[in-house]
């Protein structure tokens, strides 16, 4: 667990830094994905909704393409897929309280689970570990983003 410029960035997640999303292997060969604490901050800190497009469930979503949407009074935008894969399920808890993605983005507030199409090769396009957190930190410094 690392705290970078007030942003919580666990070193066991795989990050697609440019899109502020994470991926992490879950049970059954699935990959769990979500928004980072940085995305939560950038979207205004209080969300009105996170919605996974129902039509996409069972379909392959390409890395970087829209997996879900985030809405707040200040922001609307996509949650890009950190990896390519078939969208298996959305986190139903977000429908009742989208703000768990802000308060617990890497835990209860995950967004979706995917069956990855080529995790072994695609994970090389993500960053992880202490090195990954350092790269994310460099991005936050370059863009002058902080979560505090």
């Amino acid at each position, binding site marked *: 667990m690392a705290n970078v410029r007030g942003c919580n960035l666990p070193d066991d997640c795989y990050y697609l830094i440019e899109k502020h999303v994470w991926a992490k292997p879950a049970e059954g060969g699935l990959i769990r994905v979500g928004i980072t604490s940085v995305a939560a901050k950038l979207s205004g800190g209080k969300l009105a909704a996170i919605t996974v497009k129902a039509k996409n469930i069972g379909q392959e979503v390409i890395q970087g393409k829209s997996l879900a949407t985030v809405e707040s009074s200040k922001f*609307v935008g996509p949650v890009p897929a950190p990896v390519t894969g078939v969208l298996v399920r959305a986190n139903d808890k977000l429908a009742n309280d989208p703000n768990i993605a802000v308060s617990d983005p890497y835990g209860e507030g995950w967004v979706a689970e995917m069956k990855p199409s080529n995790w072994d090769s695609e994970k090389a396009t993500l960053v992880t570990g202490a090195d990954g957190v350092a790269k994310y930190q460099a991005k936050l410094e370059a863009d002058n983003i902080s979560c505090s």
Partner: protein
Amino acid sequence: MDNVLIIMTSGPDTPRRCATPFFFASLAAAMDYEVTMFFTIDGTLLLKKGMAETIYPKAGGKPVSDFLQEAKEAGVKMLACTASTELHDLKPEDLIDGIKMVGGAAMWQIAEDAKTLTF
């Protein structure tokens, strides 16, 4: 790819009707819909240079120009109805950049293959 067409008729006289259409357009773009906004009647006035900056849907909130810019950045295409520019005595150079002027028939052709909403 699914298409969405938003027909914008609301303008400076009804500020509270001027943010949500842009927000919905940005949202649809984030959902990977192909989104077009067609401005007609008073909606066209929002495209007049300098106008959207002066309209606040909510006191103390963001001006319409912010919502408009976000929609453009999300990839929303914006078309202005030529007849409505004449209604308001607007010349093409009076409009903000990135707006294509088209006739009403263009709107119908887009509507043939698009889910259509009017605000």
